[in-house]
């Protein structure tokens, strides 16, 4: 018995010691101070130096938390046990969050730097007049390929090139129902927001013919796998593509001519926010052209800030793969909020595609 009590006491002391050490480290970092701002963002989606700069300028301590999917983020906000002051969801999630009353309206007068945003990226279908959201980054979905591993005559300017039999077992797809169903629909000339059952079934049948070429359908590992030349080509988001090309410059990125998806990640203030003042300060800070440019250079995604673009290095701002000309952007579509039922159907079709064996 004595031994037991001793062991338990030792464990208790050890855990209290750890707790003390953690709170000591916490306070030495200022994490537990009262003037804090909790930011809920995608992993590695901001230049950490900017966070330090913001803390220095305003004296507000930033707690940076990350999520890995819009849905996970929404669940947490909906649940209510959290106090996020700023979050960065994608456009379709904003529509949903708006409907479920999870967002606070944004007062534009408190964001003087909003004027730097390109008008092309304001007042979009998912949030008219930007009542609830401020653009953060935008990008596309396209094909990344390795010219050394793919046949010479394939330049992937069309989605149909993916179906080339010479790419057998050499293609990686990103694990997203909207993305995969989207290019299936696009390749048939339909909208990627199509709701017609026969079009969806047609897309599914076409996608199932792609199965022999598909090596794997993966998540974020796709970057590592493509950079390691584990496959010859892949369907990815533009931001991932820029990271992959940073690591392995043999690869190239294309937006197919049939059209594709354009997406936006936007700053919002969730209903759970505690530090509204800090949230506005932070958003305004990120809208500042110099900061936006620094962030775009670090993250590698395209910035919607028109005054930040001249501040970017020439090779970034003139890169049409990431800042496509207007005639191409005209063919890009934003994901509509399809509604839960349709989205569920998209996912089930995607599941069916995944289970289709070669």
């Amino acid at each position, binding site marked *: 018995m004595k031994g037991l009590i001793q062991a338990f006491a030792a464990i208790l002391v050890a855990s209290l010691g750890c707790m003390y050490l953690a709170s000591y480290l916490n306070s030495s970092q200022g994490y537990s101070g009262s003037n804090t701002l909790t930011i809920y963002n995608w992993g590695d989606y901001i230049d950490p130096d900017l966070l330090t700069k913001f803390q220095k300028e305003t004296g507000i301590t930033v707690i940076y938390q990350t999520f890995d999917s819009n849905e996970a983020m929404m669940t947490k906000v909906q649940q209510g046990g959290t106090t996020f002051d700023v979050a960065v969801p994608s456009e379709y999630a904003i529509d949903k969050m708006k409907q479920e009353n999870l967002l606070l309206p944004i007062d534009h007068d408190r964001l003087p730097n909003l004027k730097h945003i390109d008008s092309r990226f304001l007042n979009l279908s998912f949030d008219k007049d930007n009542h609830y959201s401020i653009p953060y980054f935008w990008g596309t979905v396209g094909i990344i390929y390795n010219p050394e591993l793919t046949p010479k005559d394939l330049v992937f300017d069309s989605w149909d090139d993916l179906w080339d039999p010479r790419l057998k077992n050499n293609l990686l797809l990103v694990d997203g*129902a909207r993305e995969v169903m989207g290019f299936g629909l696009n390749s048939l000339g339909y909208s990627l927001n199509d709701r017609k059952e026969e079009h969806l079934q047609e897309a599914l049948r076409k996608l199932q013919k792609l199965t022999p070429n598909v090596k794997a359908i993966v998540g974020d590992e796709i970057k590592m796998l493509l950079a390691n030349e584990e496959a010859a080509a892949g369907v990815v988001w533009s931001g991932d593509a820029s990271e992959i090309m940073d690591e392995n410059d043999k690869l190239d990125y294309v937006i197919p001519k049939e059209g594709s998806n354009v997406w936006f990640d936007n700053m919002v203030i969730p209903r759970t926010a505690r530090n509204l003042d800090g949230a506005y300060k932070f958003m305004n800070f990120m809208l500042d052209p110099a900061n936006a440019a620094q962030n775009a250079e670090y993250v590698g995604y395209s910035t919607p800030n028109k005054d930040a673009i001249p501040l970017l290095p020439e090779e970034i701002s003139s890169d049409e793969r990431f800042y496509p000309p207007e005639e191409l952007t005209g063919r890009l579509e934003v994901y509509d909020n399809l509604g839960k*039922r349709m989205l569920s159907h998209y996912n089930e079709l995607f599941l069916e595609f*995944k289970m289709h064996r070669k």
Partner: protein
Amino acid sequence: MAVRNRNFFLVPYVLWILLFVAAPIALTLYKSFFDVDGAFTLDNYVRFFTPVYLKMTLSSFWYAFLITLFSLLIAYPAAWLLTRTKHKQLWLLLIILPTWINLLLKVYAFLGIFGTYGAVNRSLEWLGIGAQQILFTDFSFVFVSVYIFIPFMILPIFNSLEELNPSLVFAARDLGASPWTTFRRVVFPLTLDGVKAGCQAVFIPALSLFMITRLVAGNRVITLGTAIEQHFLVTQDWGMGSTIAVFLIIVMVLIMFAAGKREVRR
């Protein structure tokens, strides 16, 4: 002598069960009767019996079976040999220790090891066999799953082997039984409890594996766990996710009953 005392240990324990076992199950069951729009429906159960989900169920069971089988085949001899080593408890601990290192990291390491330019393919090339596709195949999926579950299979088998009376083995051998007969007629039946416990501890979690189906199998293998995760985290169709969960809970209870029943008969 049965002491007539009130069993006051029961109170906190039953409270825990009510709060953390019964309540979550009840909630899951409750949720399974609602569709995405929050309306009451039995549709989820109808949907479960469509080909997509039935196929998924079948393939889940098939892979779970394979994983359990290979775990058992590898774990039994390993447990047996462990009981013969000096410092056997230490070796057992050391077999369990790798589970303390984060699973995701180990899986990433496997991505590197099995990759086209990974360690395994390098050695295959060196042996003159040439590089093979290992990643994103059934083999890599079963291999990594077995890797994850093997400690949970070794543990109960090790314990039942420990409890085995060695004189029984000696007796069988003295009576002229071959090593194989001794194993088949004496050792294995006596350690059956451990084997059953191990199979249970592997089979049911294997039905609901999710992360590694994507990481190692590249979504070429879809299990019920993947579907649950999708419905809870991606489609937000909690009703359908709960329906699959209810199905798994039922399977689980059936397996537990089957394991328990045989015990009673014996």
